[in-house]
């Protein structure tokens, strides 16, 4: 069953020259799928994610997310929709600097005015799952990149959203921290059947997904499914990326662990 359906969506930015960042794009995301979106810089990935997150509206075309059409929602309804059904992970973590790890994580629940007992229970469990016990009361500036991103993931998951949207979640992490984060996302995807849409530049990160959607200049370019081993999936991603025009020679010898 498709949880996201995009039907010929177009996003035009008005400026001195009107510029279409997304052009007649159609695709679906299945319930429980882990989807990667790839494409060259400026191809419209972040724009697409903003449309999915109801922060922005498509100029034309129709978009359905979890049986809702964001275009028909009022600003307030959209906010509540985001609050209940979506979770976000950003490239630069975007933790609130004034809140501790624990507080950053419970933030979405406090917005929904959950009982404090319930909040404590959930945050305790998540902190264990994310191995953040030691830094529980630290402030964001006292965290390593990996810890910060795990905190951000915790924040995206605590209210058990239907869909998690991630924009280059590993973009600022080294390979070890990236691996932790990706395995974490995979685990969540498996265990909770949470749908994840992740924008990434990193073919290794993409190889963790079930499917990779390639876009170019805001248009559909291609898509591939993981059918076999991750290593072969990775190679196929690299091939497609070189078709897209990226320079991937330096990566083609990488062996995945």
């Amino acid at each position: 069953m498709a949880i996201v359906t995009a039907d010929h969506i177009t996003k035009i930015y008005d400026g001195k020259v009107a510029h279409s960042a997304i052009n007649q794009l159609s695709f679906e995301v299945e319930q429980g799928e882990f989807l990667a979106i790839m494409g060259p810089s400026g191809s419209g990935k972040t724009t697409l994610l903003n449309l999915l997150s109801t922060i922005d509206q498509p100029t034309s075309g129709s978009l359905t997310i979890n049986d809702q059409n964001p275009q028909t929602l009022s600003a307030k309804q959209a906010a509540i929709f985001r609050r209940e059904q979506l979770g976000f992970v950003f490239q630069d973590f975007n933790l609130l600097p004034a809140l501790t790890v624990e507080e950053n994580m419970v933030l979405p629940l406090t917005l929904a005015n959950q009982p404090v007992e319930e909040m404590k229970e959930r945050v305790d469990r998540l902190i264990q799952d994310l191995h953040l016990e030691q830094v529980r009361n630290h402030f964001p500036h006292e965290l390593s990149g990996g810890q910060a991103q795990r905190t951000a993931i915790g924040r995206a998951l605590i209210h058990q959203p239907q869909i998690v949207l991630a924009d280059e979640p590993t973009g600022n992490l080294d390979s070890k921290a990236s691996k932790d984060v990706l395995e974490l996302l995979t685990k969540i995807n498996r265990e909770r059947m949470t749908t994840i849409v992740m924008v990434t530049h990193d073919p290794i990160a993409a190889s963790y997904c079930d499917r990779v959607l390639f876009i170019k200049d805001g248009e559909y370019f291609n898509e591939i499914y993981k059918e076999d081993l991750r290593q072969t999936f990775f190679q196929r991603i690299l091939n497609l990326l070189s078709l897209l025009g990226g320079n991937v020679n330096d990566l083609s010898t990488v062996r995945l662990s």
Partner: protein
Amino acid sequence: MTFLQFAYRNVIRNRRVYAAYFMASSFSVMVFFIYSMLLFHPSIENQFIQEIAFMGMAVADVVLVIFTLFFLLYSLSAFLQARSKEFGILQQLGMDRSQLQRLVFIETMILGVVALATGIFFGYIFTKLFFMVIRAMLVLDTLPLYFSPEPFLLTAVVFTTLFIVISIAGSIFIRQSAIIQLLSGSTQSRETAHFSKVGAFLSFGLLAVAYGLVLYCLYEMNVWWSPVIILCAIAGSYYFFKDGILYLIHKLQRNKQLYWRSLRIVTFSDAIEKIRENARMYFIVTMVSTLAIISVGVVASLTSFANQYRESNPISVLYVSESGNPYEASHIDQLTSDFYKENLTYTLLTAPVTKQTSAATNRPVQLLRETDINTIAAVLKEPLIDLEPGEGMRFGQEVRDGQEQLIHLRENTIYFHVDEGYQYFPLPEAAFDGPAYILSDEDFERIVNPYLYGDWASSVTTVFAFHVPDWLRTDKVGLTLDREMIASYEGNQELPFYFDNPGLNYSYISSTFSLLLVTGLLVAAVLILAAGSFIYFKFYTNLEKDRRQFEVLRHMGLTNQELRRIANRQLYPQFFLPWGLAMLHATFSFLFLQAVWVDIAAMSIAMEMLIVLGAFTCIQAVYYLLIRWRYFAHLQLHTG
């Protein structure tokens, strides 16, 4: 791109950051210039007014310069701190120290020179208006706008020196910090994030002592407490922002039931962060605002004193002549001709005052006649009295319960009861010797024998009361008499007459005070602008961070309405915390001031003080709304 261009562009592109600082400094230049215009005014003829104008303006100018120096120094160090990251990058790119210093020096000078020019320009424009106000206040005939180089030169020289000094100071700040320190920039301040419990309790204690002492002084005035109170209040405020307020919020945060509730978690933590980072600035803003409010309050209370002075001296011109005064006729002639020259209408009322001896004390007492008093009272529109024979009233003083007395005049064996005082208008005590009483006409007629220790000639004093409806214009009446009076005080010699012209005194008092008021108001305006500029600056440097934070919250599903609520609450502590404390300080200072005034003149300044506090609240509210409007626009919270 030359170096100078680079510096110039830095200033222009950072203009939003510098806006409030620029405004405050050019306003300071403007006020300084306007004062200097009065200081050098060539055509104030009145000697006295020229002196007070000169003194007042000179003092205000000095205060302004000193304050501006500190203001600029503090602002500059804050700016450099905010831009430290930028400087670090520049140095990493290979800019050397001396270049960086030059950059800072040039940038500061550019700002300074432009502020100077702007200030003088607007100063000259507003001088006309200022002169009009001053002219009305000092009741001068003319106070023309003039052009002469002195004020321009003075302002230019003083402020150029000032800007050079702080530009040099700025480049010294820079020299003292290492690249790595610059690059890490503001994160440094977080390391000192912890507050001390001792400091918190110290702050509460100090504030309690300061306020407690003020309250104590209401019962038992002692001016020597004031340095203690001021020191306690200053130290208390400092620790309050450094530790006290953090402690309070921390207490709240411990309670998760309270703290983990919808938006509170965001607003509280944000408040803590902002307070931690800006404790010193909040402290300074509090002190500066308090100073501004108090200075306006003090001068406002002086005007209240001037009004009260008039009320307690309702007789426009008073001449008291002892019997046998050889100048009496010539003086009265002179006064009437003065009135004539000034084109003033007047009513002359005379009242004889007779000296007798009280049998009980064997000391002289002065006696007035009921009808004479009533005639004066009628002209002054005061209530009339009706005394029966055997009744008397104590003139100019109240008679408390238990102080009633029966007075026996020895010379004529007249008895009268005194159980009430007469206080509708006073006559100067200096004019008589001994206490004065009002007798009924019947009793007064019975005084036939003169004062025991003299003859008739030495027992009667005559009061000449001139009532002038247009009393404000009597300031040129009896100037020679006034001078003689002053000379006699100074030479300690007895005169056979007494002269008092409250209109003249009032014109001195009120012009001094009005001048003080205008001066105080403008200086306070500079202070308030400076305080506002600190807040604006901090607000502006945090803007980018706040914008990103709001982006996250928006993603997280906060409605615009909720975001607005958060934004609003983020502004509160910055505005209302220093402000609230300043208001509290000012209120207590006014209580103290009231106590002082009660001691001096039995006068209430409540009304004036309420107006001052109210006015400052309005200013602050307007400023808050203005900033909020800009803030919302920046965070794009107005739409939707």
